[in-house]
């Protein structure tokens, strides 16, 4: 029996030595240590060993068993490590290969710039209101101090739906609605689509404006300047400067055109600003007292400023978009660029 055990031990150790995979090692375990394995069979034979030899044989049996188990465990560990290493090696990928991912969408550049402008004015206590796109002549013109036959109507080419119903030519149309609804202090911006019957290389019959209106007991051109300077510096860059030029709009008096230092060259003069260092971006002024009175706000007590500018123009400056028409073609190769 002793010889038998030695033989099993030798066979087992040899089998362990030969085995190369965890599957083979498991076979070895079953063959020698399993329920009907060779070692088990030997152990069953222990019953027939004379009583006095039993302790020695038992001891030997255990020694053999431990030797096999020890060798087996060591080999299993080694094989598992080798197999892990082999798997990791096999799993190597080319990390430079293009990834699979879900495409991220984009907001339209006009929306992006609109949001950015809104954020700037929200921080200055402005609220956002949106008005109608098809508007009555009353709100689009008359309450803004542009009666019928006023020469200022020439300034804007208006689309008509009916005699007294127009596509709003300016977001200013919402001014009157706001003023008729609430009393000062008023601080509102209103973005939106506007319409002019003007269609050439540099004009689109549909574009977007941002209107601003602030009314309180003591609003000055200084406040208008400060507010617009804050906007321009946050929108373009901290060193942006402002220049006001006298102009005319029926609903403001005094009226100004506002230029900012060129966003590209910071005022030095470049192609974008045609060498002037300045870019015209908006019209503004002190709300005409006649407009306040027509809209139920006491012009003796209150004053205000208003401004309006084209969102497309700001977007085109910001992104260097050469042609306003690109904004309305909606080519995905154009739209995909605005994922900033």
């Amino acid at each position: 029996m002793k010889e038998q055990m030695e033989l099993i031990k030798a066979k087992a150790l040899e089998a362990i030595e030969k085995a190369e995979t965890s599957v083979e090692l498991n076979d070895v375990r079953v063959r020698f240590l399993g329920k009907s394995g060779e070692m088990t069979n030997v152990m069953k034979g222990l019953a027939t060993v004379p009583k006095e030899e039993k302790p020695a044989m038992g001891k030997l049996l255990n020694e053999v068993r431990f030797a096999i188990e020890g060798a087996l465990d060591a080999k299993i560990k080694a094989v598992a490590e080798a197999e892990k290493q082999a798997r990791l090696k096999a799993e190597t990928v080319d990390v430079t290969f293009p990834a699979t991912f879900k495409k991220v969408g984009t907001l339209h550049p006009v929306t992006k710039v609109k949001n950015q402008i809104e954020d700037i004015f929200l921080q200055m206590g402005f609220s956002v209101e949106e008005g109608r796109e098809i508007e009555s002549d009353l709100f689009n013109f008359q309450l803004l101090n542009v009666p019928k036959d006023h020469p200022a109507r020439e300034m804007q080419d208006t689309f008509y739906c009916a005699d007294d119903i127009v596509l709003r030519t300016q977001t200013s149309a919402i001014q009157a609605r706001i003023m008729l609804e609430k009393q000062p202090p008023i601080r509102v911006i209103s973005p939106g689509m506007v319409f002019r019957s003007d269609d050439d290389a540099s004009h689109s019959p549909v574009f977007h404006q941002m209107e601003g209106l602030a009314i309180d007991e003591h609003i000055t051109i200084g406040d208008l300047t400060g507010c617009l300077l804050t906007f321009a510096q946050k929108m373009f860059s901290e060193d942006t400067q402002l220049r006001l030029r006298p102009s005319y709009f029926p609903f403001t008096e005094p009226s100004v055109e506002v230029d900012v230092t060129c966003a590209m060259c910071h005022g030095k003069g470049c192609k974008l600003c045609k060498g002037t260092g300045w870019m015209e971006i908006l019209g503004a002024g002190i709300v005409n007292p006649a407009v306040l009175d027509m809209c139920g706000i006491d012009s003796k007590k209150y004053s205000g400023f208003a401004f309006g500018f084209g969102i497309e123009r700001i977007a085109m400056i910001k992104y260097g978009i050469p042609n306003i028409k690109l904004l309305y073609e909606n080519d995905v190769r154009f739209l995909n660029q605005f994922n900033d």
Partner: protein
Amino acid sequence: MLAPISWLKDYVDINVSPEVLAKKLVSIGFEVEEIIYQEKSASKIVVGKIIEVEKHPNADRLRVTQIDIGSGRIQVVTNVPVVGGETIAVALDGAVLADGHKIVKGELRGVVSEGMLCGLEEIGATIDDVEGQNKDDIIRFPEGTALGANALKTLGFDDVILDVGVTANRPDCNSIYKLAKEVAVALKTDCREPEINYSTVGGDVSDFVAVDVQNNELCPRYMAGAVKNVKIFPSSHKIKSRLHAVGIRPINNIVDITNYVLTEIGQPMHAFDLRDLDGGRIVVRNAHAGEEIVTLDGKKNTMTENMLVIADASRPVAIAGVMGGENSGVKDDTTTIIFESAKFLNSSIRRTSRALALRTDSSARFEKGIDFASQEYGIKRALTLIAETNSGEIVDGFIDCKVEYAQVRDIEFTTKQIERIVGCKVLKRTLISILSRLGIECDDNGTSLVAHIREDREDIVGINDIAEEFIRVYGYSHIKPTLFEYSKLTKGGKNAKILFVDRVKDALVSLGLNETISYAFTTPKFAQALQLDEGDKLCEAIPLVNPLGEALSVMRTTLTHSMCETLAFNITHFNKEAALFEISNVYIPKALPLTELPDEEQRLAIGLYGADVDFFTVKGVIEELFEKLSIEGKYQRASLNYLHPGRSAEVYVNGILVGHVGEMHPDSAKFYGVDNRLYVAELSIDRLFELINTTKTFKPFSKFPTMERDLAVVVDEEVAVGDMLDAVSGGKIKYLTDLTAFDTYRSDAIGKDKKSVALSFTFASLEGTLKDDDINGEMNRILSILKRRFGAKIRG
């Protein structure tokens, strides 16, 4: 407004460059759109002297000339019959002519030519612009003219013209003289008035003509003067060149004088031939309906009753303020003229001019508005020019029919009030002095100032106007920026609807869609594209009265059409796939034609195409959007003409229809010129906004293991899986936390018009770990619901 600087200089001394002048004008509110240098209308054209002329060896009609251009000699081949010794204008190699044509050295029939002899056309001038030249001939200079000098300058074609943008509140500045007054303000200097100086030969204008103004609302003032023994001849070079420089064609001395006064003073004038005024009468009256008049341009105009005409005793002789009649204009043999200098109501002139499609310098000027001071000044200035040019004998007196008007308006104000508008310190003496420079004199009565506004400044009506006059001259650069120094704080913020739209947009962007914006108006053919039936509500699109063209002539009632156009644009522009959305209004009229403002409804359109896109891709976008909005969509088969009948659905939230989703009908897709399958959805943002749940509360969830069971049942083909899921959801099944369908299978074994639907259920309990026994009963209940409601059988 074109303003030659030489003309401005008649009234104001200008000692700065045109560029500096332009900047100064801009700073006080007059945009200078362009500075036009006459001498730069062509380049590298110099004075040359022909030294030698020889016949061209290879061409009978050509000559080879040697020309001395001061700095040297050049050879020029020409077909002009020039002779030696003549001084001419020659374009050198590299010259650019007025029409943009470039002159380059080259060979003409084998002989080198280094330039070209020039006529007036080549330099962009006419015989009205320069003296002593002939039409259709080359430019010739007198003997002794400096050679090599700029030919345009030598000709005196060297004025600088400012193109000034005059704002609508300053109609008075559409004249050289009033603009000169502003130049004087800008340059801090004085302005001279155009001279009034003539003598009359006695008589009385009323012996020649009688004026009867029958509508003084449309004609608040009508002045008439008479000139007899008129001689008609071409105007002087000065008048002709000035008129031509501002874009007016010189005609003869009398017509030129009326146009000169229009440009100089801003007062439109007209001259009638007295012989043509029947009864020696001028009647200013409304036209009779259907009355006809042939104007000076030869056009026959049919008048309506709201138009104003100038008539004689029997017939109309002019359309008031617009154009004179062919029957009464100045002719070569005219001997007595009646000058008209009138004020017509601007709105009346505008309407008439529009209705007749007749725009003239006169009507344009009247439309902008003419003040009461100009009529008298204008007619006196015209008579001064008659005298200056010896054009006739001036009859004594004027006829002047006018309504009452205030000659001077007073505005009382304080410096404090001005400060409150402009926001900077205002010194009283600075204020008074600036206003005085602008021709506004003030009385200082200690506590306040009273400004006297003359009638030519109709735009100044209140303190804000005074503030503007002050600050535009004082300079906006004096104002320091402040940020609501004297104002109350305001809350600010966006309203719930705007925030909702922002949220929808952000959600769609995160799903990989690009936002688009398209025009709010479209072609009426959209109805055809969408195959709409005649009575379909969507066909009721508001038409524009004055569209840019048919393609942009109706306000859209649906976004789907625009979305399809955008998808098609991308397909035809080589983009393999697109996933787009737009949030915009549609316009729903209450009635057509429009009598009141229409409803504007905000909509969301989604559009997709591409190799991996199908119905469930676009439905998936909606589902994911709804997930982000925490609302649940239900779908029912839709039947819309423009959607695929088998692949389109109505979308419901809380039982309310919010829109549609589906594949475009192939017939509609074809209209957009593409074969691709287009997937679209259009949902009402307004309705979704009302349906979103704005309050969220925590719901407990099980911490124990979940159990999952699958079930495959066979049902009839037309059974909607969504209905099956809804039925189970609503069946009060215990422990059921989630259910979905994951497969549909059809085969012969299952049977014709049958399908097998594989459903998956997830169970969990808040109290403990579930056992099979807990679930078996619930699965049986599920099966019995499916059997009862849908005739479902367990798939064997």
